[in-house]
């Protein structure tokens, strides 16, 4: 897995979605089931992932069934980049 994926997404989430830039997200911290990222921000996350990593996430994948943590999301991205 590319080591920079997690910090890149993490930075986007804390600065743009949470507006709490000094916050530290753990790679295994639940994002969706915890309500940290609400449904209104999921599209932003998907568009960011697409623009940054060239990986498309379908809208039906934007649920905790597909990913809930930074680790899981990074894994999907790394897999699709191959």
């Amino acid at each position, binding site marked *: 897995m590319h080591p920079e994926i997690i910090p890149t997404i993490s930075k986007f989430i804390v600065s743009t979605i*949470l*507006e*709490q830039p*000094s*916050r530290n997200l753990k790679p295994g911290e639940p994002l*969706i*089931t*915890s*309500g*940290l990222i*609400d*449904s*209104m921000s*999921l*599209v*932003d996350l998907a*568009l960011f992932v697409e623009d940054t990593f060239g990986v498309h996430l379908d*809208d*039906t994948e*934007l649920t*905790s069934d597909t990913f809930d943590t930074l680790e899981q999301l990074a894994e999907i991205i790394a897999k699709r980049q191959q």
Partner: protein
Amino acid sequence: MSTLPQVLWDAGQQVPEQVAIYLQHAHQPDLSIRYRDLLTGGVKYARLLEQHGILPGDVVILILQHGIDLVYGFWGAILHGAIPSIMPFLTEKLLPEKYRADLASLIAVTKPVALITYPDFVEEAKAALTQGGPVRAVISTDPGTHHDERGDVDVLTTMGGFRRQPEDVVLLQHSSGTTGLQKGVALSHQAVLRHMTTYSEAIRLSTQDVIVSWLPLYHDMGLIAGFLMPILTRTPLVLMSPFDWVRAPYRLLQAVSRYHGTLTWLPNFAYNFCVSKIRDRDLEGVDLSSWRSVINCSEPMRWESHARFYERFAPFGLRESALATCYAMAENTFAVSQGGIDGEVVWMDVDRDILQLNGIAQPPSEGGVAVRMLSAGKPIRGVDVRVLSSEGTPLGDYIVGELAVKSDTMLTGYYNRPDLTEKAFVDGYYLTGDLGFTGGGEVYVSGRKKDLMIVGGRNIYPQDLEELAGTVPGVHPGRMVVFGVFDEITGTEEVVAIVEADTESQEEREQIAAQVREKVTRGSAVVLRRVQVVDAHWLIKTSSGKISRFANRQKYLQQFCQQNG
């Protein structure tokens, strides 16, 4: 005067094959529900209610998501003569125990006798019940019984719904949150049916129209404009899930294009949301020229949102004349006023400071800051709007006061809350809690008297969120405040929480902020935009010792936001 079962029955007899609803689910073929299906599907649920000993006039709570069960369950309750009310389904970010508590508080006031939900949610729903409580049955949906052909339709007219009187209550609507769920707006058959007539007239509804909606049915805009009106007036409805829309807002535009949709109702934030989150690649071949009215309703409307929406989608055929506005509330069944149907939406440039400080709407004075206010249109037929001073006397044009409404489509009352009902009316006028003014026959809404926030079209009571924030360790008991701040980018109010804490440590304060966020989100499904941890004694109290939302909001804006005021 007729009743809802009668109107549905007539449609089932006269146009049985006409499609009432095109029901959409992401990545599934659309499901066509004809009028005859509404009767056969509804009758199954009516029978289920009968089997469980539910009587006409009893309240039935539907705990169902977007889908065919919700459609049939709702009409089944109506056909049986029971009173349906739709409760939002549990979302994953909301804690199940909090959901249970909300459900329990709804049950305590509304006293439903039955709940209808999915088989795998029955146990969860039962967990909210208490021994000796009003609920006698938790009824499970049965996926096997749908789309039968004839069913029991022939015996339908013997059902309880056909013995309901026009003045009987037909349904209840609740706002969200603990406070909202304890206040069910009860509407009668005649109020709903009269409103169908007057509102159809206001929007010039015709047989050429196709309504496209993603709005949830537990909200008045979704239930009335995006469900009951199309069905009762035989206007085809394309209905998608709010969950699908929020993850892929382009689906709305694709549906409009595909079905030649003509009418859609949206809360203001949805205009901004569509503008910023839809990419051109998802709009290939999309043609929006059939859209004759996109009606902005249910939260403060912004001229900027309309302008951005038009600019973004004009290349796809959106007409500028399609932009429309509406002022509505569940207590009036739905619409109070409607604008932008026969001509463009009226707007007025108002001096912001004079409006805020003196409560007068006038053109900007020299050097003054102008705010472009959208009119919510003219009162629809049968509705009288007054602007009242704080002493309750009617005010003249362009003077801000509380909007009060009188009509013949008003609520029967807040269900089982005669105390609240009585307080809500003065001289036959319903006190809306909204501030605004009239001018040139138009109604303008400028703010709110009550502390209620409207976030993404959803009513939120700050006290519910404050209570949750107060449970976080490290937060001073009773020393917190929650309020809304309008955000230009999202086009809606963003929720801000301020809490007092003793600790000076930045790290501990970050932790407190994170916990407040989590507590509030998981306890209310409301996402806080910002949590500000402040020193003890930062918050301003009123003379009666209460924390003032208004004063603290002003202080917050001055101290942490610099712009505006």
